[in-house]
């Protein structure tokens, strides 16, 4: 089992609230990722990071923001939650690889977010 943790696992909250989804990994991985996944559906990359102070936007436009102040921590923030943000959010990490990247990503168990 990979050591990557997401909290909370479930969150039901009202519209307009500020939300932070936590993701931590204890493997010392440089690369970290956030995906959005509707239940049983495909994954969409929304943010990724190569390391401390590095953040990049993914393929799916998202109103969320991320930060990477510490290697092990990659929180995702929604400043003002809306019902359209209802989804599952998965965090992942992978080892740095010199040259072409052939390392698998390790996933947390996700946060299922419901905005009322």
């Amino acid at each position, binding site marked *: 089992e990979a050591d990557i943790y997401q909290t909370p696992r479930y969150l039901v909250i009202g519209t307009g609230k500020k939300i932070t989804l936590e993701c931590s990994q204890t493997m010392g991985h440089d690369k970290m990722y956030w995906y959005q996944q509707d239940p*049983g559906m495909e994954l969409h990359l929304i943010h990724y990071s190569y390391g401390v102070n590095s953040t990049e936007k993914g393929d799916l436009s998202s109103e969320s923001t991320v930060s990477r102040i510490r290697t092990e921590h990659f929180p995702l923030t929604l400043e003002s939650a809306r019902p359209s943000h209802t989804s599952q959010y998965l965090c*992942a990490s992978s080892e740095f690889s010199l040259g072409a*990247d052939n390392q*698998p990503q390790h*996933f947390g168990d996700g946060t299922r977010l419901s905005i009322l």
Partner: protein
Amino acid sequence: AQSVAQPEDQVNVAEGNPLTVKCTYSVSGNPYLFWYVQYPNRGLQFLLKYITGDNLVKGSYGFEAEFNKSQTSFHLKKPSALVSDSALYFCAVRGYFNTDKLIFGTGTRLQVFP
């Protein structure tokens, strides 16, 4: 552009029978290919990967996958299915020249019946 296709939304198989979950890909240069499994209310778990070498790759839980360069396929297989194998399976690809992102397929739901 990189892409990966899983042509079957669902695969049904009886317990004890062999199973195959199909995946085809499109990528520039040599591909790096991965299979993941997702159980309900869980994240994705890494099963196996193909980087180079032997076309038959063995992974976790008795799964294996066969890389076929001419058909650009990477099908997941298991000789004898278990009910506990029922889950959502994702194929993913990363191209040698574009390693920022892992491109996932849309997933295939495997249902193993007792």
